[in-house]
Structure formats: C-alpha cells, structure tokens
C-alpha cells in the first residue's frame, strides 16, 4: 500500500474524522486531528525535518498497526481535543492558528498535566521510531538520523516492512 493510499484510508478512519471542541460549556467547532498531530510533531522535534524524516507519514502507518492498542489510538485523538481546548483557554485560538512561540507556551502548559506529559511522550516516541526506522518503512530513506548519532543499525536489515 503506498503512503498516499494509506493517507486516503486514514482520512476516512478515526484520525480522519473531525474532533469536536468545547470552549466553556458550548460547542466551539471541529478540528482535524491529522493536521494537528503533524504540527505538534514538528513543534516537538523539528530536528526530524532537518534529517528529512517524515514523522507524520510514520504516524499514519503505525496507528494502523494491530499491535498498537485502540486505547493508545483513542488517547492520541483525545489529546488533540484537549490540546486545542487548552489553546483556546490560553489564547482564544486553535493550536494551529497560533504563532510558534505561543504553540510552545501551550505545549509547556499541557506538559504540567499528567495526560499532557504522556501525550507528548507518546508523540515523541513515535517520532523517534520514525527517525530510526529501517528504509523499508519508507519514511527515513537517507539514514540521516543514524548518521547524526553515529549509530550502526543491526544487520541484516529487514527485507519487508512489518506493518
């Protein structure tokens, strides 16, 4: 399955559907989880872009995996809602409509909550998996992250992706 096909599939799946936001006691609107998660990943570890690793595509791949539990997937989706709600509370705007500095403020704020800390840790973990994934997974074609750490992957390499 190509990434575009996967992306199309995911647009119809749980991360593709809109997340409803409440501000105070009333419905504020809806946000796109995929767009949010991709931006948060970039904000959390901009080095990935420098290393030419497509962390957002990896997230799409991994969240389709049968061994990633529904609870973990649901938590990521819920985190999107809570992040935007925190952003609305602090600045009256959605997370992805904030400046870079204010987005960092929101991340700092949510990291004080246990859900926020764990949500950040989860996203960072998936980003790191992308960074050090084998070329067969298609998101880290240049091994730049391995070179950055002087890390030699074990051999033999996989012949096919286990996804």
């Amino acid at each position, binding site marked *: 399955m190509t990434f575009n096909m996967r992306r199309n599939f995911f647009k119809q799946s749980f991360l593709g559907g809109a997340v409803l936001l409440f501000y105070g006691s009333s419905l504020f609107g809806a946000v796109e989880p995929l767009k949010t998660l991709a931006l948060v990943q970039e904000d959390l570890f901009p080095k990935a872009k420098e290393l030419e690793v497509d962390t957002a595509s990896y997230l799409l791949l991994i969240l389709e995996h049968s061994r990633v539990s529904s609870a973990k997937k649901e938590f990521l989706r819920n985190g999107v809602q809570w992040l935007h709600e925190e952003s609305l509370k602090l600045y009256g705007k959605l997370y992805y409509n904030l400046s870079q500095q204010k987005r960092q403020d929101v991340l700092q704020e949510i990291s004080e909550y246990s859900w926020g800390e764990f949500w950040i840790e989860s996203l960072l973990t998936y980003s790191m998996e992308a960074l050090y994934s084998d070329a067969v997974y298609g998101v880290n074609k240049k091994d730049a992250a391995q070179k950055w750490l002087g890390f*030699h992957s074990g*051999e033999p390499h996989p012949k096919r992706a286990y996804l």
Partner: protein
Amino acid sequence: MTYDICIIGSGAGGSPVAYELSRAGFSVVVLEKGKEYKEEDFNKDELAVSRRQLFTPELKEEQHVIYELDENKKRTRYVGSEEQWSFWNGSMVGGSSNLMSGFFHRLKPNDFKLLSAYGKIEGANIVDWPISYEELEPYYEKVERVVGVSGEVVPHSFLEPRSTEQFPYPKLQENRVTEWFDRACNSLGFESIATPRAILSHTALERNSCSYSNFCGSYGCATGAKGSGRAALLQKCNATIITQAFVYKLESDATKVTKAHYYDADFKTHELSAKIFVLAAQAIESSRLLLNSKNHFFPHGLANNEKQVGKNLIFSAGGAGEGRFRFEMLTKEQQKELMEVGVFFNRSLQQWYEYKKSGKKIKGGTIDFLFEHQDLIPRIKRAFYDERGQILWGEALAQRVHKELTTSRVLNFEVFNDWLPTDECFIGIEEDVKDKYGIAVGAIHLYSHPHDREVGNELAKKAVEVLKQMGAKEISYSISSSPPSNLVAGGCRFGENPKTSVLDKNCKAHALENLYVTDASFMPTGGSVPYTWTIYANAFRVADILLKRLKS
C-alpha cells in the same frame, strides 16, 4: 498414524528429545504453536522485534491473568491485555531459545540439594532434587558440544566439577572495557569470570559463527551461531514439525495419555495419537494445559489428583542495575574502547554463590555484566527527561539525546538468585477469561519471599563496588519482587514422593505411564543462574531415558 513420540512445544525442553529420538529412528512429531522462521527470515528490525513484539502473541488474543500478592498479603488482579503485562517469550519453532542472550551457567552441586546444604527457610517449600549434579554433568557437557557453548574455564571459588577441561568453542571477541572490569575486580579481590555463551565463536556444527551484529538478545540469529533449539537441533533431524498447532487438551484413560487435541491456524480442530507424550510448552503453559485437560479419571486436571500441578512456580529472583561512563572522565583511547560495538562484554561474578552472614551459610547467586541493550528507542526515551524529571522537547531534547548517546554508555548488571518456591506462587486457570481459541487462560499467582530480595541486595552491593571501582557514575540498582517473564520454572516439580511432586526423577508423571514434562516445569528449585542450559541438559537426560524405554 500413531507416532512413537509426540512433543508439545519445540523450545529448549522439547528440541533435544525430538533430536535424539528422531535420529535414533523413532517417529517423532512436534506440535508447535508458533510459526517457523529460519536464519534467512531473521533481521535486526527494532520496530518489528522489540517495539511491536513480532514473536509473541497479541495480548488481546492470548493473555494471562496475574494475581500479585504483596508483602502485606494484599492480592491485586491484573488482566494481561489491559495492563500490557506479558508472560510470552517466543512463539516459534525453537521457542524463546531463538531470542535468548545465551548466558550459559551450569547449576552448582549444592543447587541440587538446597534443603540439605542450607536448611529450611520459613514460608518456603525448599526441597532437594531427586538427582545430583553428577547425574546431570554428562548432559551439561553434551550441550556444550552439540548445542555449542563458547567460553573459557577459569578457576574460581565456585567452579563446578567438569568432565572436560575447557569449553569446546573458544570465547567470543570482547569489548576492551572488559579489561577495565578485570582490573577493578583484581584490585577488589573479586574473581572475574568470562561469561560462557551459547553462541559459536567460529564456524562449526554446520552453522556459521557469530557476526557480531550488535543485536543478540531478543533477536533471532541470522547466522545460526546462537544455539537455539531450532538451529542447533531441530534443523538437524527429521522430526515432523506441525506449526501453528495450539494444543488445548490432552486426552487420557486411567493410566495413559491417548491423544493430543489441537487447533490449527484456521481454528480447525485435529487430534493426534502417540505412544509417548512429552510436554514442553514452557512452565506456565504446560501447567495450564494439564489443568485444562480434566477428564473422568483426572477431575482436577491431568496428573493432578494430588493437586500439585501448577504449584511452586518459580522465577529467577534478583534484579538489575547500572552505571554510566561519560567521555569527560575518560582518555581519548578509553572513549574509543567504550564506544566499540558488536563485540561482547562477557563478564560474571560468582564469588558469592554462597556466603556467610552472622555465621550462617547463605545461598547467594550470580552477577552478569553486559552493556546496555543496543535497541535505540529505549535509550533515546531515557533522554526524554532532564535531571529534574521534566520532559524535554525541541532543541533541548535533540541536544540531550545526542550527548547521552554519543558521549556516554551504560554498563548494566543482572543479579540471579533463587526465587524460593512458596504456596503463594503458582499457576491456576482463570475460567472466565478465554483466549482466541475459547480456552480458559492461565492465572499466574505471584509472590516473592522476602529472603529473595535480601540475597539480591547483598549481591547487587558487590556489583556496585565493581562499577565504582571502574569509575562509573550515576550508579543505581533495583532488586524487586517483579518476576522476569523469561526466567520461569516449576509448576510440575519432580521428586520421589507422588504426594508432593508431579513428576518422578525421570520427569515422567507419577500418575501416567506415558507422559513426560521436559521444560523448566520440572525444577523444584531454580538455582541462581539463567535456566536454559539446565533445561537443555535435563531434556537430553530424559531423551536417553526414553531411548532406553523405547528400545527395550
């Protein structure tokens, strides 16, 4: 067709029996729950093997229910799939021996007579084994030759008696930091031992030598150097192996097992007949199968009329610790030595396998040292938090990850000591929780005797002394009551008395004429080393017993 031997499970307990009996011309069938992988199928894909646990069942399909009894006698129930608490180790041909690190130590003579040598301990069901070290020694030696153990025998306080002077295969190449270790031990008066490994250091036994790939434990071996039951034994015999065959029931009459019933990958049921059945599905699952095989003659489960099946479950007690070496305290040459990867850090201490405290002789254990596993994601995750425990991201995280992984390295140690058998640690059945086949799952009742942690702490303090002497910083350790899921034994202990044991000294069920158990279930006490070498050796011993029986 009725086979001569039907073996359930193809790991270290089952593969020696399959190897010996099929090579002697008997018809042998092995029923293995997992798939078959060969050398060419193995690779070092951390995402698949370590992050997504490719070789173990998905917990939502197959799991255990765990009951933990704490020191205050409070029991807590955990459902494996909800807590992500897994006791699976490797469902595949050759079982978890494919994924072991292959730290091979023999038991010592006193491990066979723990009760006689060290006396009773309140609250623990300590017994002597019905066989001696001397009876098992020829089979330890056989494993060295046939499975392949590399190492170097050096004299030390607790070197067990050997029938040969040296290992048949020379020790593996070592990281030069072992020289720092040896010097530290020398100055402390400690006896450094090169850890024997079930890994071939050169091409032999129709298998390739180790390629020093830097990823060994948890990974299948792509060269065949690691002495898995598959590479060393099953691939060299013509036993019939039926894969993806989950045995859910053994059928019996009053005296004999008659059939094994199993599901295939499509959930279709099959049955198979044999003259002799050998159970080796790993300790927890072997007891579970017996307990789930109730019938008119055995209403409490097969071979369980005395209600001993599942009792006296044991693990390896102890824990782990570490120290970090940072570039700023090392010379350029030392930095280079520290970061050398691929080659092994094979060092152990057994000087306190027995020690004295307040004039009393205490059974101690083994300390193995090794570099932190090369899996990258766990090492990076450790850098997610700063010294104050605050989560990092952005440039601060990038800098910390880079510093931790490129200018420092962690040396770990693992403590192995006896997990004393007790009435509170056992395997049962959780009738209300079923696996994907609709079969009731195993209930693992955990309890660790306080004595286990006392001994573990004594040993850990010795390891800390070595790390300090080597110059390591940030030293820490944890000795806990948490069981290592890959070091499990007991549940069908062997012994002379049918009232207090499931198996006789030949590992045949007291209650049945043709049922043998050859995984670690037979062990009434576990010794203070990893179990695999002893499982292999005992399975070869039972194979000899079966050969004599079938030939007579």
